[in-house]
C-alpha cells in the first residue's frame, strides 16, 4: 500500500498545501462520493482572468490528499484557460507518479478543478 507511494506524494500527504476554505470564493468545485471513498472540494479565487488563490478540503486516502494539495499548487497564477488544460496526468506526474490503482484520485482532482471553474463561469454569467 504505502510502499507504492513516491516521496513527493508522502510529502504532500504529511504536509498538504493550501488546506482550508475561501469564504468568498469565486468558484467552488464539489466532486466524488462516499462509495468510492474520495470527496474533494476545491475553492478558487479569481482576479482578472488568473487564479489568485486556491484551497481544498478532501475526504480520502493519501493519493486523494496529495493530488488535492498538488493541484492547488499547479493552478496558482494560471489563467482560467490554462487551468482547464491541467490534466490528471499532469497532477500525477508532478507527484512523481501514482500507483495504477490510485490514478482515479488524480482524475478526481482534475474534475474538482473543472467543477470549480465551471462554477466560477456560471457565477460570472449570472452577474452579467
Amino acid at each position, binding site marked *: 500500500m504505502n510502499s507504492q507511494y513516491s516521496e513527493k506524494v508522502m510529502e504532500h500527504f504529511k504536509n498538504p498545501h493550501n488546506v482550508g476554505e475561501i469564504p468568498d470564493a469565486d468558484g467552488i468545485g464539489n466532486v466524488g462520493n462516499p*462509495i468510492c471513498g474520495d470527496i474533494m472540494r476545491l475553492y478558487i479565487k479569481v482576479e482578472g482572468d488568473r487564479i489568485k488563490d486556491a484551497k481544498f*478540503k*478532501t*475526504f*480520502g*486516502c493519501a493519493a486523494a*490528499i496529495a493530488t488535492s494539495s498538488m493541484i492547488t499548487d499547479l493552478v496558482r497564477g494560471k489563467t482560467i484557460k490554462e487551468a482547464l488544460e491541467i490534466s490528471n496526468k499532469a497532477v500525477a506526474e508532478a507527484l512523481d507518479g501514482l500507483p495504477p490503482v490510485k490514478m482515479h484520485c488524480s482524475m478526481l482532482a482534475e474534475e474538482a478543478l473543472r467543477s470549480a471553474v465551471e462554477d466560477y463561469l456560471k457565477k460570472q454569467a449570472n452577474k452579467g
Partner: protein
Amino acid sequence: MKRIYLDHNATTPVNPEVLKEMLPYFGEEYGNASSLHSFGRYAREAVEDARAKVSNLIGPVEPVDIVFTSGGTESDNFAIKGVAHALKSKGKHMITSEIEHHAVLNTCEFLAKNGYEVTYIPVDEYGLVDIGAVKKAVRPDTILISIMFANNEVGTIEPVKEVSAIAREKGVLFHTDAVQALGKIPIDVEEIGIDLLSISAHKIYGPKGTGALYINKKAKMTPFMHGGHHERNRRAGTENVAGIVGFGTACKLAGEYMEKENRRILALRDRLRDGINKNIGDVKLNGHPLMRLPNTLNISFKYVEGESVLLNLDLKGIAASSGSACTSGSLEPSHVLSAMGVEPATAQGSVRFSLGSENTEAEIDIVIKELPPIIKKLRDMSPLYDLRKK
C-alpha cells in the same frame, strides 16, 4: 522509533518456542515423512505428534480427522469444493453468509458460475447471522452450510451452535471457517456439532503456509489436491514437516495460554476502546459489543478515510488495518461493513485494531495518545466534517 503492531488478525509473529521446534526440520531432520527409512520415520513422528496437538485445541477430536493443508484458504477451498463435488448427485445448493472471508465467498462464486446455487444469508447491524434466514434457506437439495466461527474484520462471534442444530436437523453438512477464532476462543467441534473446520497456523503465532481442515468421518469429500497418497489420500503433497510441527506447537501453546491471555488482551483492548471514546468524538464501534473476539476492535472515525488514518499511524510506527475501499484494493468499502448496514462514508473511516501477545499497556497508551491529533488533522481537512459543523 518503537513499532507497535496492532494487526494480529492479519498475521502474527512466530513464537520463538514454535520456531525452535521447527528448526531441526530444516536441518538434520529433513526426511520426507512418507519415506520408509529412519529419516522418514523421524519426520513422520513429528507430523503425527503435531496432528495430535492440533486435535487437542479443537476438541479433542480424533487426530486422523485432521488433514494438513497450506493454510486457511486451501482448507476453505477444499471443504466447499470437496463437498460440492462429492455430493453433487444429492444437490447443488449451498448456504453461506454475506460476511465470509473471500476464500469462502469467491469459492462459492466460482461454484455458482459452474452449475451450483448459493444463498447468502444476511447479517444484522452487529454482524450476527440471521438464524431464521438460515433455517428458511435450507432446501432438499442443500448440501452444505458454511458460516464462519468469528469474523476477521469486526470480530463478531457467530451463533455456530444454532447453525449446527439446523444443519443436523436437516441432514446438511456444516462447515465453519474458524481461522480467526482458533486460539482466541475455545472450540469444541464435537460439542458444537461441526462437520468441517478450517484453521490456520499464522494467526496463532505459527508459521505462514500451514493450515488444516478437520473433516468429520461422515462428510463425503472429493480431494482438492490429487497426487500421492498423503493424508490418507485426502490431500496430496509432501508434508511441510517444519510448518506442521510449528502449527502443532502453536496449538499447544495457544491451549495453555488462551484463558489467561484472553483476559489480559481483553483488558488491553477495552483500555484502547475507552481511551478512544474518551478522547475522540464521533466514533462508532463496528461489531457486536459482547459477542466479539477478545482482541478485535473495529472503530469508524467519522468524516475521515481509513487509509489516511493508517498511513498517519504508520508514520508513528503503529500498524493497524482498515475496511476502506482504498485499502481493500477494490473501489468499494468492506463487504462485511456493507452487509452490516454501515453507511459507505462511515465504513470508509473504519480502522481495525487487533491485539496480540506482544502488546502492552504502555503500547496501548501510546496509541491512545497518538490517535486524537491524527484524527483532528484529517477532520480539519475534511469537507464532511465541515458539513457536520454547519
